[in-house]
């Protein structure tokens, strides 16, 4: 496989992984925020 093609494929793989990770971090941060709120409510009881 030509180097350029292999690199391009590798980049595509990495791009997909990066986008997946990014979405994961974003989603988990939203979840963390809601847990923080829950904790606040329980602490205030």
């Amino acid at each position, binding site marked *: *496989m*030509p*180097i350029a093609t*292999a*690199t391009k494929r*590798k*980049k595509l793989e*990495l*791009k997909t*992984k*990066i*986008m997946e*990770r*990014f*979405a*994961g*971090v*974003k989603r*988990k*941060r939203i*979840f*963390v925020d809601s*847990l*923080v709120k*829950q*904790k606040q409510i*329980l*602490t*205030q*009881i």
Partner: protein
Amino acid sequence: MATPEQSSQKQEFTEAPSGIDVEGLVQEWLADPDMDMLHISEQLDNGELTTADLQEMERILTEEEDQEDQRVADLHKEIGDLLKTEKTQDVMIVDEYQELMGQDPRASFQFFHEQVQKYLKKGDDYVSGLFFLEEFKDIPEIQEDLKNDLVRIAKLAPLVLAAYLPVLEDWNPANVKSARFDVYRELFKGRDPADLALKVFENASSSHLGFNRVVAVRDAAKEAGYGMDERKVAEYVEKYILERPNGKSYYPFVDFKEQMDLADGAQIQIDKTKLQKEANTILARKISVDPELLPTWKIQGSLQSLKEAKDQGVAIDTALFSGVLNQNLLGYIEQYPVARLLGASLVGVLEGAKELSLSLNISMLKGALTERINTPKDEKELLETLFNLDSLIKRLKDEGFDLHYEDIKAKLEQDSRVDGKTRGELDARAVELFVKECEVADDSVRLPKDALLDNSDVKKALMDLAIRKPEKMLFGSGLLLVFGVDAKKHEKFTKELRFHVLYSVSYMSGGVNNFIVKYLEAQDKTVYSSGLSNALSSLKEVLELADKYNIFYDRKVLSENVNQIVWDVLDREDSVRDWFFGYDELYVKLDEAGLGLPAKSEELQKHFTLLAQKHVEPRTSQDPEDWFSELPEIHDKAGERGIMYDGVALHEQINAILVEPMDRDGEIKRYLALPNIQATLDKAGISLDEATLKRIKFFSRYMEQ
């Protein structure tokens, strides 16, 4: 050796980093709430990022994701722990009970039944849901199960059940044999009824409720065939009445009589004679203090304490307190300089004593007064007493102490230091002593005779002292340091003295400005607004004098500095009354002296808001009804003066206070006080948030437990 393909693969993985700040880029994406996949895809496709860059970005994001996973796990654990606390469980359970009760009381009982199994199985000395006992009592088909549950609670959580005995008094289900008896038997098996009664009394949110519980425990024990150690209960209650927590601790024995009546109502045989005697002993100890610390106003204060205790139902032992009062007065007469008797009023003490039917030993006190006047502590006091004897004797006569003037005078004149001397010689000696006193005085000096102020040596001594202690002369009432002198009668000399001082001060470092500010700052550390007001009382005259004789000072700077000091002092005021007193008083003084700043509403609003916030924040009282009690007064007084405050800040603060987590007793007290709190806040023009009310009411059922 690598093949070309292997080599190309190697090359593919080792494409060098481009130097782009990939960490910064990733963090920028994460921080941007609008960043979406399309934008990211476009940025990743820009061609400048190498595989090494992309690998690094993936590594960073993986690390971020791992960290978020860890945070989620930590929060889950923390929330889990919070959910395990009794308080949280209670709230959630109360919610569930309320919902079920509204739909189907039997389902609610079923839930209660499960709770009993669950909690008591765990060995907890706790069970929720008993607050619905009244309702459960009315559902015939569950009475057998209810009885079994109550027996179980009686066995495993006796204190919880004992607190609910008043609800069980009329519980007599027709379809269950000896239901109440069986529960009572289980409750008292192997337990001391007195201990149970006292424990539930102690846990009650009010003594009223506590006494009811004691009655219920006693009746239940009796019904179950157990006796209660009445003496043990009575001793506890006696101690409670004498030592009960008193939020308003400035006078003892609040509701003394009411508590005794409650004990009576609960048929607790307290020893009232012993209680009264002990209350008197405690009071006597409280008001018998070191005579040196006992000016007449303190004696009056102690009489006021007695009066308040009497109003609360303490039977004042007049013989005991007549003795204490006579002793206090004797101590006062012996310790205080004769000259002070001229200024002090015994009338208030005598009136207070009369109100309490305390008898003063007038002949003993007259003897002590005669003895004290006849034995001056030094030559100065001797002269002072002689010079002022007429007015002193007249004053004491007006107050009910008719002393033998001629005898006292004759005795004083026999003293070798005055015997045979003419009036002129005595005056000269008094001047000599006064000049010496001025030379070493740190604080006030006392002129033994008003007329001596015309003496040139006295004037010079005062001038020298005024230069040495300029603040004493410039401020206050001018001749404040010269006790015994009528400043008004000597206005010309007062002005002369002031000019003399002011002129010297203007040559000091920083001049008049610095001197005034330094002086007021020093006052500021020690006094509250009333003291500062006194210090400012002659500022107008001082500045007029400076204006008249062109003594330099910067009025604008002085005004700013003095106003700042005034704010500082007002901000420290603990009492609302003092704040407004100070505010009115000081601003009049500043206005008169021409130092008042133009009304800066935002400045005023700021300090006023601080005052209001201060009165809700420290909440020293245990009683929630007291927390906001000063706000209506603040509101009214501010309204009268057109002062605004930051209502939003206050509103938020109050709502936050009312939802602060508290222990069970605190929650109960706060809930019970809610109607009064609302009424108080209403008067102060402050409303509570719906959420706050909900949050407090949420506990309504729970509170009754």
